[in-house]
């Protein structure tokens, strides 16, 4: 069984790696916008913006509605929350490892023991 979460995370991070796409998401965080509204402040052509929107859509970060002619875009928050969760878990992983490393360094420095016999270097 291949989980889909890792694929989702990968596509989320890839989508976020581009500054234009982050700017688009930041704009959409404050409300829906049409493609031309998104294109204007970025000084980009519509096809260029559409290309970025496709990446964001594929990553599930935005939705485009069909109801009106201008097809407004919306932000979808769930994948971003998942990415934030991952960052939090990753940080926790390293913080706990760091805590253990800190303790371990204290122990071996107190013992003045080292594996390959070059103890002298580490003696205070």
């Amino acid at each position, binding site marked *: *069984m291949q*989980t889909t*979460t890792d694929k989702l995370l990968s596509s989320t991070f890839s989508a976020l790696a581009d500054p234009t796409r982050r700017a688009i998401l930041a704009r959409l965080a404050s409300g829906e916008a049409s493609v031309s509204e998104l294109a204007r402040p970025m000084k980009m052509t519509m096809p260029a913006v559409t290309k970025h929107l496709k990446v964001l859509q594929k990553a599930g970060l935005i939705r485009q509605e069909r109801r009106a002619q201008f097809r407004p875009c919306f932000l979808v928050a769930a994948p971003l929350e998942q990415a934030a969760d*991952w*960052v939090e878990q990753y940080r926790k992983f390293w913080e706990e490892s760091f805590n*253990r*490393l800190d303790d371990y*360094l204290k122990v071996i420095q107190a013992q003045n023991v080292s*594996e390959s016999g070059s103890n002298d*270097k580490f003696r205070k």
Partner: protein
Amino acid sequence: MINSENEKELVIARDFAAPRELVWRVWNEPAHIEKWFGPKGFRTKVRSMDFRKGGKWEYVMIGPDGLEYPFGGIYLEVDPIERVVSTDDFGEEFQERSPEMSMPKIISVTTLFEDRGEATRIVIKTIHASAEDKKKHEEMGVEEGWASSFEKIDVYLTELKG
């Protein structure tokens, strides 16, 4: 602690009260690694470790319930007492065992060792890479090609929510 001195990376750092040579060894020698690596309640075994550029490494973390979580990678750079760059690939087995702690597939991790007076600072820079990046990387054999990245994601996500 997470900060973003470079906008393209996720950065975690910590200072340790030990000289750099010692921190380097404790960080990079299997017998030492097994003593501290991994979250609380986990044990880590170093299954293999070919500690040189292009060499492979494989760890397995063993959870409190005895379940094994294997993962590994390839060393892209080994620059003694300065830095290690490695891919970090959490394989399918890892994902299956830990759906709630799922990882993006491929990651490049740079670990820097810096003098801070009597202490040593470890800086971990994590870059996310797509499968295409990995392939490109393998074809080229060197450090270019990590196109996509975390891009200051922790700060960014907070901004979005705000």
